[in-house]
C-alpha cells in the first residue's frame, strides 16, 4: 500500500510501525533515556519508540516536548520517522531540529503496529 501525506520534515527512513490511537506527550510521556512510553494508561505504555516509524494522531502537552525529541535523537532513542494525522507545532519543530522525517495528513488507521513502513518525502510505503 502506498499513502501520500504532507511533508513536515523531509527525509527518508524505514522500520517497523508502532501505532498509537492516542496523542503522545513527549515531555513526561516518554523517557528520553530509554525511548519507552511511560504515560500511565497510554495505549503504548511500556513500548519502545526507538528506531520505529512512530504513528500517532498528533502531539500533546508541554512545548518542552520539542526539546525532548531533540534529546532522544542525540541519545539514539528517537523514532526513525513520525507519521501524524495532523502534526502540531511541538512535534513539527521537534522533528525539524532533530532531523527526523515527519509526514502528516495521513489516515493513520491504515497502518498497523508491526507493519514494515518506508517513508520517502511525502510518500509512505506500507508492507511494499
Amino acid at each position, binding site marked *: 500500500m502506498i499513502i501520500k501525506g504532507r511533508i513536515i*520534515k523531509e527525509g527518508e527512513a524505514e522500520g517497523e510501525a508502532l501505532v498509537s490511537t492516542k496523542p503522545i506527550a513527549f515531555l513526561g510521556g516518554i523517557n528520553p533515556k530509554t525511548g519507552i512510553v511511560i504515560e500511565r494508561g497510554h495505549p503504548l505504555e511500556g513500548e519502545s519508540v526507538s528506531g520505529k516509524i512512530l504513528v500517532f494522531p498528533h502531539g500533546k502537552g508541554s512545548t*518542552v516536548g520539542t526539546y*525532548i525529541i531533540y534529546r532522544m535523537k542525540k541519545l539514539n532513542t528517537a523514532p526513525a520517522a513520525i507519521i501524524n494525522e495532523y*502534526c502540531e*507545532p511541538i512535534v513539527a*519543530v521537534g522533528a*525539524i531540529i532533530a532531523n527526523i522525517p515527519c509526514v502528516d495528513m495521513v489516515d493513520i488507521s491504515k497502518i498497523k503496529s508491526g507493519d514494515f513502513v518506508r517513508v520517502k518525502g511525502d510518500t509512505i510505503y506500507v508492507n511494499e
Partner: protein
Amino acid sequence: MLTKEEEAMLNGEMGEGVQKAMEIIVALGKIYNAKELIKVESAHISGVSYKNLGDEGLEFLEEFASMGVKTIVEATLNPAGMDMESWEELGFSREFAEKQTRIVKAYERMGVKATCTCTPYLIGNKPKFGQHIAWSESSAIIYANSILGARTNRESGISALASAITGRTAKYGLHLDENRLADYIVKVKCDVKGVSDFGALGYLIGKIVGDKVPYITGIKIADLDELKALGASMAASGAVGLFHMENITPETKIKKMIKDHAEEIEIENLKEAYETLNYDIREIDVVSIGCPHASIEEIRKVAYMIKGRKVKSQLWITTSRRIYDEAKRQGLLEIINEAGGKVIRDTCIVVAPIEELGFKTLATNSAKMATLSPSHSKVKVRFGSLEDCIKAALSGVWNDN
C-alpha cells in the same frame, strides 16, 4: 508561496542554521494553512530558564549557536531562572547558575539581547501599531497585540527564535484582520481597581473564552500596569492572545472589533477569582511583586509604602535590569533595601527554582502568578491587592479583613 530570498534560506544557501530556522517557519505555515510568509519587525524569545528548558534545551541552543546563526531583527530575551548577577547571595545553586549562564550566553552568541525580561515593551522593544512581530511569552504577546496594536501569534520560544533568524513568520492567525475581531463581548458590571482586581478579571475572562478574542466593556479607566496584569492573567488562565477594551485599546478606536454573532457574557463580581486563587494560609514566606516584571511606577509605589519600615517576610520585587538601574538612579532601590526588601533582576518566582530556596508560602498581587505557582512551584498562595501584600510583608502574616 516563498520569495526568492526565502527559497534560498530554505535550500540551505545561507547555511544550515538558517535553513533549519526557515524549515520551522515553513512547517508552521503549512500547519496553519498560511499562504505566504511576512517580514517581522521584532522577536521576543522565551524558553530561557534552565528550570524549564533542562539539559535538552541547553544542548540544542548551544549547538544551534555553533551553527553560526544570527538574528536579523531586534530580538529580546525572556526572564532567566535567576538574577544573573546576584544569584549566589539569593541562594541559587552553583550548578543551576552555571547552566543558566550557558543558556543566556548561547542566546547572546546568536545576537539576542540578554534583556531577561517578560516586559520587553517597557525597555525599548516596543513595536508600533500594525507592525508584524514574532513574540513568545504569553503576557508580552497579549500586551503587544492588545495594548500596542502590533500583530503576533502565540509563538513558542523556538519559533520566535526562528523568526529572529529569518526575519519572517507565517501569515496566519492574529496577523490577519479577520482573526482580530472579538468572539465574545464581556460586560463588566462591577468596580475594578488596581492591579490585583484587573488580574482577577483577566483570570475569569480567560477561563471563559479560552483561546478566543474577548471585547471588554464597562471599564472607564485603566492604567498600563493594570492592563499588563489583566492581559497576563487572561493569557495564563486561558490562552488568550488578544483582547479589546472599549475606548481604551487602540484598535477599538478605529473600527468595530466585534464579530457579527459574538456571544455576550456578564461579569457581576470578582469574588470567584479571589476565592479560587487564595489558599487558606497565614504565615507568608515571601511576598512577590512584579509578575509580569514591575514597571518603575510599581517599584515606586512599593518604596513609598515600606519607606522607613522593616519587612518580616521576604519581599521580592522582580523586574528587568533596565528598570532596576532606573530604580537605583531614583533612590528607590536604597529605600527598599533598607526596609529589608529585594529588587531582583532577570528572573521571577514563576521561572526561578524557588523550591530550592525553601519557599512554601507566597503572597502576590499578580493573578498570573497565583494561577501558575501552586502547580509550577509547589507553593501555597495568597492573592490580594498591593496594599494587602505589603501588609503581609511587614507583619509576616496574611490577614483577611
